[in-house]
């Protein structure tokens, strides 16, 4: 009898200790309020980034970038590229100046100072190049992957709606263009001759 009592007492104590260390109780309305305060607005976040952070965003000179990846693609991307998880796609923020040589349906072709060419994307603005290249957001900081992905969606929307149209209205072959943007390089299929930059800043030098 005493043995059983002791056994059940020990089991009860273990359950109570485990329970005490397992949960924390707090008023639901307070938790809800703090959650509502923290509701994520991807559009505002993306707009704030484009308006305030793009100018000061560190970027690699595009000519330097092209020469480095042609010399040592794997080493350079591993050292300087930003990627999500174990992806083969590395992202970079690039800047430079080039002359418009042609205006295609999906991109504008720029000839750089070193005679190489790059494409500025003007259509099909997709992917995570801006978000991941700029390292503006860390996946661990978000409640779910939808919030994290919505940043890229909104950044791409802003580029599509606010950055490309005014540029396309003014740009013509022969213009000198100052640009800053994001690019993704897949090390398994780099296509370095036709890298497509998602523009963050496009300025025609008058």
């Amino acid at each position: 009898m005493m043995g059983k009592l002791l056994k059940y007492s020990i089991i009860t104590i273990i359950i109570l200790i485990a329970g005490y260390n397992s949960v924390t109780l707090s008023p639901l309305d307070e938790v809800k309020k703090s959650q509502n305060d923290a509701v994520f607005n991807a559009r505002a976040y993306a707009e704030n980034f484009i308006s305030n952070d793009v100018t000061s965003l560190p970027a690699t000179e595009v000519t330097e970038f092209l020469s480095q990846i042609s010399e040592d693609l794997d080493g350079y991307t591993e050292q300087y590229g930003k990627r999500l998880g174990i992806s083969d796609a590395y992202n970079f923020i690039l800047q430079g100046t080039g002359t418009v040589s042609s205006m295609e349906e999906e991109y504008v072709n720029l000839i750089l100072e070193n005679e190489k060419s790059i494409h500025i994307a003007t259509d099909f603005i997709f992917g995570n190049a801006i978000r991941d290249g700029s390292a503006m957001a860390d996946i661990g900081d978000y409640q779910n992957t939808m919030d994290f992905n919505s940043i890229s969606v909104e950044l791409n929307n802003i580029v599509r709606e606010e950055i490309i149209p005014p540029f396309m209205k003014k740009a013509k072959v022969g213009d000198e263009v100052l640009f800053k943007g994001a690019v993704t390089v897949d090390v398994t299929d780099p296509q370095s001759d036709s890298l497509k930059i998602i523009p963050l800043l496009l300025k025609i030098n008058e």
Partner: protein
Amino acid sequence: MTLVILTKGIDLSVGSMLAFAGAVTAGLLKFGIEIPSVNTFVGFTVFGAILAGLLVGGALGTFNGWMITKFKVPPFVATLAMLTIARGATMLWTGGFPITGLGDSFAFIGTGWFLGIPMPVWIMAIVVAFAIILTKKTVFGRHIYAIGGNESAARLSGINIKKVKIWVYAIAGILAAVGGIILTSRLDSAQPNAGMSYELDSIAAVVIGGTSLSGGRGSIMGTVQGALIIGVLNSGRSPFERVPFLGSR
């Protein structure tokens, strides 16, 4: 799975139970439980979330055992049903989306190192040691072999077949939950489709390790060797994955 097969049973639901236990652990850790009727939010510590995950695994396993012993449903059918139930529950619990960002202390379970050895290896060593002692040094372990060898004889010998079988399936559920928690921790994400086809790997490891599907014969160390062989085969398959249909499962 070894204990289950030793009793001449099978558990097809381990992959789904793994996913559900991992999702429950991640969900409780990340979102807690809201109880509006008493205006209370129950937040879970890492310890609490893990405990809840293990309880869920144990409960599902117990349900398997109960269905098999109480209603005489063949293990293949009962656990096949649980495979679907647990997968559906996982989808409901997660809403079909991964639960991510579970924190560094939880990630330590799957990615941390202790004395130069990864944490999952320590956990495996503890589980293996527990299983060896259970099967070789306890009455319960001998009962498992006896039931698998000849269930009628075991019953006539006074062994409580139902109780042993329910415990065996409960242990399988708890260990599936352990796998789910480690996997969730390693990925820092509870995936609704985690653990797909893991039951086949698990059964293959047990059988390759020498445990008889007819029950009554086999060992935990054999299963460890079987699991290592399966692991090597899975890793060795990777170079072929660039060839469609050759490396893929």
